[in-house]
């Protein structure tokens, strides 16, 4: 009897211990995991996605906007049709041209290989398909095929201003991120902030009112209203592309700015890319040459050197050049004019009209290397312009005190000095703006849901006196009327301009064949509406700016005269 009692006691004790051990296993050891599983059943947590802000033109129409796209996926465990049938149904909808048999066959192979992949239960079949395609697939009623929302970027003007706008790609975590141009510079502003929602739901997925509900609202990305004028932008795109073709150039840039407040009205460059399919293009096309490519400006730089000399008071417009009767020797180099024509006792105005290199050496010597360095720096050369675009480059300027005689001489006619197009147009806008510097700006306003931030123009310091600015403007007017590009001058219109043909430095010497042709000008010269820079890289019909960049400048300017209602003088 006692033994039986003992056995029963032992049995109960062991059962009790087993129970304790089992409870310990479920409550303590597995407790966290089970608790998380239970929470997962009744608590739904989700990210509230927010849309990226739009980029608008000055007239509030879209340059870039957010649209709807879908990722098509296959939940392989739910798929009932054969992979081959599904691939044949989907492939024609995934290709750009369903009539292109080869691309459809290639797409069938691709989709089939994805659907028959081993060891996966879920797979993405195609990203960024349009809503119409989604609708067609839904109508097919293929089991196991689903869709996930994806935001896409729409560019209503196609590849226009692609390098100015930048593009939206993915970061390391697979989230949308803006790269280059405005998309890159204003990425944080445009992106907004996704929200978060945690809700307790019942078995049917209906929210429980007395459950724990937490919500952090999403903040929509702000819109950017730019100074970009669609007419100006599309005119630049169209005419620059035609100009490059006409003059056989390998590329080119065109920038239009309001010299009074620095607002960028248009910016175009070729070769370019399509931001919708940026992955099909090489990385070298993503950078905007207007802000990131440097070149030796050539004769357009003469206006900066001449303006400096006029402001320093070392010359007057009618001062005579006493070394202009022939080539001038500097150190061991001989400086000649571009056409080997010489004009003894030229006035400074004539030096600009004839784009006389020897005359410019005379001017630079009058200013002196240290003073010229200070002026060039004040004009913004050798410093960032602070334009609100990602990827601005700043070519180095030779240090002060290290300019030799030949450095000073060559700098006077724009050789040995590297600039970016945006630096050049910003420097020239100082002349158009009566001597006061402005910062180039693309964005005018940042517009949020219930707020707006007006980006005011940034006026800089006075670089040259108003008198000097007027004097160099008058010289540029004469250069436009009587210089080597006079044949293309639009008679009657108030244009101040200067051509520049720069040789391209290659491996320590200048290539005689390859040039960069530029024309910079503003109109009307007494109260400018716009300043425009045209640069053509390696034109083949003629190496000279007067025969390539200048006629292109006037061809575009003619449209702007009509658009801005600029009347001829008489």
């Amino acid at each position, binding site marked *: 009897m006692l033994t039986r009692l003992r056995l029963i006691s032992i049995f109960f004790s062991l059962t009790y211990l087993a129970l304790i051990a089992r409870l310990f296993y479920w409550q303590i050891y597995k407790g966290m995991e089970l608790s998380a599983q239970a929470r997962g059943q009744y608590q739904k947590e989700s990210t509230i996605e927010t849309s990226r802000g739009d980029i608008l033109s000055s007239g509030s129409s879209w340059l870039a906007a957010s649209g709807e796209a879908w990722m098509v996926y296959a939940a392989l465990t739910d798929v009932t049709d054969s992979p081959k049938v599904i691939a044949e149904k989907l492939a024609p909808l995934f290709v750009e041209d369903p009539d292109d048999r080869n691309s459809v066959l290639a797409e069938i192979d691709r989709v089939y290989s994805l659907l028959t992949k081993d060891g996966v239960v879920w797979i993405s079949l195609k990203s960024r398909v349009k809503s119409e395609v989604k609708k067609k697939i839904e109508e097919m009623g293929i089991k196991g095929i689903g869709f996930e929302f994806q935001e896409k970027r729409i560019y*209503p003007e196609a590849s226009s201003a692609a390098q100015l706008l930048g593009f939206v790609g993915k970061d390391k975590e697979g989230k949308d991120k803006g790269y280059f141009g405005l998309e890159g510079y204003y990425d944080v502003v445009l992106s907004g902030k996704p929200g978060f929602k945690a809700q307790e739901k019942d078995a049917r997925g209906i929210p429980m009112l007395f459950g724990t509900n937490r919500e952090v609202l999403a903040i929509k990305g702000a819109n950017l209203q730019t100074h970009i004028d669609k007419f100006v932008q599309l005119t630049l795109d169209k005419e620059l592309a035609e100009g490059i073709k006409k003059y056989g150039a390998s590329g080119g840039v065109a920038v239009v700015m309001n010299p009074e407040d620095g607002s960028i009205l248009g910016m175009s460059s070729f070769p370019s890319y399509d931001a919708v399919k940026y992955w099909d293009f090489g990385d070298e096309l993503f950078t905007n040459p207007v802000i990131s490519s440097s070149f030796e400006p050539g004769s357009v730089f003469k206006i900066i050197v001449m303006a400096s000399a006029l402001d320093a008071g070392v010359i007057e417009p009618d001062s005579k050049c006493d070394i202009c009767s022939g080539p001038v020797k500097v150190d061991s180099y001989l400086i000649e004019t571009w056409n080997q024509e010489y004009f003894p006792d030229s006035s400074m105005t004539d030096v600009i009209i004839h784009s006389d290199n020897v005359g410019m050496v005379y001017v630079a010597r009058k200013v002196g290397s240290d003073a010229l360095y200070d002026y060039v720096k004040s004009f913004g050369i050798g410093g960032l312009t602070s334009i609100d675009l990602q990827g601005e480059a700043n070519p180095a300027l030779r240090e002060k005190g290290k300019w030799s005689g030949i450095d000073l001489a060559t700098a006077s006619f724009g050789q040995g000095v590297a600039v970016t197009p945006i630096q050049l147009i910003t420097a020239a806008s100082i002349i158009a703006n009566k001597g006061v510097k402005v910062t180039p700006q693309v964005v005018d306003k940042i517009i949020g849901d219930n707020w707006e931030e007006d980006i005011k123009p940034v006026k800089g310091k006075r670089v040259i006196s108003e008198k000097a600015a007027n004097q160099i403007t008058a010289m540029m007017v004469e250069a436009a009327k009587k210089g080597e590009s006079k044949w293309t001058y639009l008679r009657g219109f108030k244009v101040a301009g200067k051509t520049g043909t720069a040789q391209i430095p290659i491996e320590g010497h200048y290539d005689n064949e390859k040039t960069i042709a530029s024309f910079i000008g503003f109109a009307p010269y007494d109260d400018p509406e716009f300043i425009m820079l045209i640069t053509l890289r390696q034109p083949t019909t003629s190496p000279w700016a007067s025969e390539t960049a200048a006629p292109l400048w006037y061809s575009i300017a003619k449209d702007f005269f009509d658009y801005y209602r600029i009347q001829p003088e008489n």
Partner: protein
Amino acid sequence: MTRRFKPITNRTLRFSLSKKVVCGILISLCFIVQIFFTIETSANGAQIANLEEEQERLSKENRELEEKLVTSTSLSDLEKRAEDLGFSNDARFYYLKKGEAFAKLP
């Protein structure tokens, strides 16, 4: 012989009955209120779910309409359409000199 009856105190009986009834009523009321609120919260939850669905549908519709609006305001497309329809830029411009009287009343 006089029979003596123990007086019945109605008070005690009334009190004990009403207590049970009150308890019963209260418990029933609690049940009814609980059921009512359960149904009400469940219905409200369903309403919230419907509203969320409606919000999602409207957002989607809004996105689609905005996309249509964006693509239809393309200036380059408009220019192309105008060209296809036979429109062209008028190259003739007439400049009027300021100060000169024109369309002047007699």
